C-alpha cells in the first residue's frame, strides 16, 4: 500500500508557452512506502521524495516494531532474557542466543565446555544457512522471481527439521544458553546432519544457475546501490554489507569466539566483475552483497563438516550456574551474525539481574546508510537495495 500525498506546488498551472519550449517540468511528490509494504521486509517506513521515477530523497522511519528488548533485558535474569534475543533477529535465533550467552560468559568468567562450543558452532552455522536462504529467496521475490523463493524455503525446511530435532522449535530456539547449550543431540542426529550437508552442498549451484547469473537479475542488481568502503566504515556497516565493499573483516576470524579458530574456512569478499564474477559487477553493489550470501552458505557447510568431525564427548553446559550473580563490571561483546556484528553491552551490579543491557543490532547500523545511498536513484532500485542489505525489523527496532 502506498499512500500518496501530492504536494501542492505554487506553479501547478504550467505555462503553455513553456511546455512548447520543451520545459516539461514534473512535480515533486512525497510517497509513503510502508510500514505495510511487501518490499520493505517488515514494518519499515520510508518516506520518498520523488520526481517521476527518480527518488530524490529517502528518509527511513523506524520504531513500528519497537519491542522494548533493552528494558526487558535489565528486568530479567540472563537465562530469562535468552528467549527475547531469539525474537530480535528472528531469522537467526541461534546466533542471537550465542551473542548474549558469550557476553554474559565473558562478564562472569564462565568457561564453556569444548563439546558445547562445537555444538554452538554447528547450530549457529546451520542457522546462518537458514537465514541466508530466506534472504536469497526473498531477494528473488523482490526482483520478481518467485521460483527461487520456493526452492530456498524447501531447503530451509530441511535445516529447520534438523534444528527442531535438536531443540524442539522451528524458529525461536533459546537453545544456546549461558554456559553451553540446553540439551545434547538426539540419537542419529549427526548422521542426519551429514546427509543434509551432502544434499545441500551441490544445491548451491542450483541457486547460481537459477538466480545469481540470471540476466534479468543481473540487470536489476549490478552497479545498483553501490556502497564505497569509506561510506561503509563511516556508517558502521558490518557483516556481509561490509565485506561486499571489499574488506576481509569477519569477527569469526578476527576475534574468534566459541572456538572458531579451530576451523578452516574462507571469507568471501566483493570483487569487481571479470574472472569469476559476471561482467558489470562493481564492488559494493547489490549483486555483490547478494552473492556474498550464496558463497557464505558454502563456507558454513565447510565449517559444519569440520565441527562434526571434531565433535568430542563431554559436558554440554558449564557447572554451577545456579544463582548466577553478575559481577560489578561491564562488557561489550560482538559476534558475527548472518546480518553483521551483533553486539551486547552488559553491565552487572552484583545482583542476578543486569543493570543495563544494550543490543547493537547490525541491521540498525546497516539501514542507516539508506538515506545516503538512495539519492537520485530509480524507484525500482530501492527494493533491490533494501533487499540486499537484508534488514530484519525486529532487530532494527529491538
Amino acid at each position, binding site marked *: 500500500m502506498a499512500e500518496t500525498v501530492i504536494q501542492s506546488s505554487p506553479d501547478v498551472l504550467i505555462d503553455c508557452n513553456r511546455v512548447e519550449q520543451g520545459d516539461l517540468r514534473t512535480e515533486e511528490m512525497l510517497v509513503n512506502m510502508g510500514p505495510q509494504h511487501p518490499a520493505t521486509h517488515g514494518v519499515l517506513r520510508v518516506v520518498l521524495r520523488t520526481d517521476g521515477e527518480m527518488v530524490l530523497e529517502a528518509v527511513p522511519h523506524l520504531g*513500528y516494531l519497537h519491542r522494548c528488548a533493552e528494558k526487558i533485558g535489565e528486568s530479567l535474569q540472563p537465562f530469562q532474557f535468552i528467549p527475547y534475543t531469539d525474537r530480535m533477529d528472528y531469522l537467526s535465533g541461534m546466533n542471537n542466543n550465542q551473542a548474549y550467552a558469550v557476553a554474559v560468559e565473558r562478564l562472569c568468567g564462565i568457561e564453556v565446555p569444548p563439546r558445547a562450543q562445537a555444538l554452538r558452532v554447528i547450530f549457529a552455522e546451520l542457522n546462518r544457512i537458514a537465514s541466508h536462504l530466506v534472504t536469497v529467496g526473498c531477494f528473488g521475490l523482490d526482483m520478481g522471481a518467485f521460483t527461487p523463493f520456493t526452492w530456498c524455503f524447501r531447503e530451509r525446511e530441511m535445516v529447520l527439521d534438523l534444528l527442531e530435532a535438536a531443540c524442539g522449535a522451528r524458529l525461536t530456539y533459546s537453545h544456546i544458553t549461558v554456559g553451553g547449550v540446553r540439551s545434547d543431540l538426539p540419537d542419529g542426529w549427526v548422521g542426519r546432519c551429514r546427509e543434509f550437508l551432502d544434499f545441500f552442498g551441490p544445491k548451491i549451484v542450483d541457486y547460481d544457475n537459477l538466480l545469481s547469473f540470471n540476466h534479468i537479475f543481473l540487470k536489476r542488481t549490478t552497479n545498483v546501490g553501490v556502497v564505497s568502503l569509506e561510506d561503509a566504515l563511516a556508517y558502521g556497516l558490518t557483516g556481509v554489507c561490509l565485506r561486499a565493499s571489499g574488506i576481509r573483516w569477519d569477527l569469526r576470524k578476527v576475534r574468534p569466539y566459541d572456538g572458531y579458530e579451530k576451523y578452516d574456512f574462507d571469507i568471501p569478499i566483493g570483487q569487481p566483475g571479470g574472472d569469476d564474477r559476471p561482467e558489470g559487477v562493481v564492488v559494493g553493489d547489490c549483486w555483490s552483497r547478494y552473492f556474498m550470501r550464496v558463497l557464505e552458505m558454502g563456507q558454513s557447510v565447510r565449517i559444519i563438516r569440520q565441527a562434526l568431525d571434531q565433535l568430542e564427548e563431554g559436558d554440554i553446559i558449564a557447572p554451577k550456574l545456579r544463582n548466577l550473580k553478575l559481577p560489578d563490571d561491564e562488557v561489550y561483546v560482538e559476534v558475527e551474525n548472518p546480518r553483521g556484528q551483533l553486539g551486547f553491552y552488559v553491565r552487572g551490579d552484583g545482583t542476578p539481574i543486569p543493570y543495563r543491557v544494550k543490543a547493537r543490532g547490525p541491521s540498525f547500523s546497516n539501514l542507516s546508510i539508506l538515506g545516503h545511498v538512495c539519492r537520485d536513484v530509480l524507484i525500482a532500485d530501492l527494493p533491490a537495495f533494501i533487499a540486499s542489505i537484508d534488514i530484519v525489523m525486529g532487530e532494527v527496532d529491538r
Partner: protein
Amino acid sequence: MSWIENRVDDGVIMTTVDWAINWGRSNSLWPMTFGLACCAIEMMATGASRFDMDRFGAGAFRATPRQADLMIVAGTVTYKMAARLKRLYNQMPEPKYVMAMGACTVGGGPYFKYGYGIVKGVDLIVPVDVYVPGCPPRPESLLEGLMRLQDQIRHQSRAKRPVTKITETVQG
C-alpha cells in the same frame, strides 16, 4: 422437496444462496501480507513449498488491503503500528476477517509485563475472528486456524454479520 423434482434439467444443482456464497467465500480467502514480526516468517513458510497454503484456497497473498478479505496479524503490534493497523482494516472490503496469529497478538505474549510500547492483544484495536496461539505458531497451527475460520464462514448467514467500521481515534 418433491414439488421441485423433475422440473429442471439434469446437471442443475439446487441449493441455498447462503450455502453457495459461503462455499465460495470460505474456499477463496485472500489473505493480506501483513507480516509484522517473527510470525511473518512462519506465515511465509506456510505459503511456501512444504505447507502450501494454496491447498486450502488461501494462497493468493495480496499486498494491498483493498484486494484482501483476511488479515493475518502476524507479529507484535506496537502502539506506533496500531493506528496503521486500524486504517488497513478499514480499507479492507466487506466481508473481512481477522486472524490473530501468535501470542503477542492474542494478548501481548512475552511482552505483556515489560513491554511499554506493546498493544496487549490486537483485539483491543480490531475485532478478531480466530486466535492462533503459539510463539510463533507452527505452520500446522496456522492452517488449523484457517480451517476454523472456514468453518465459521460456512455457518454465516447473509443477514447477520454487521458491517464493522472502526472509527479512527488513534493518531500517530
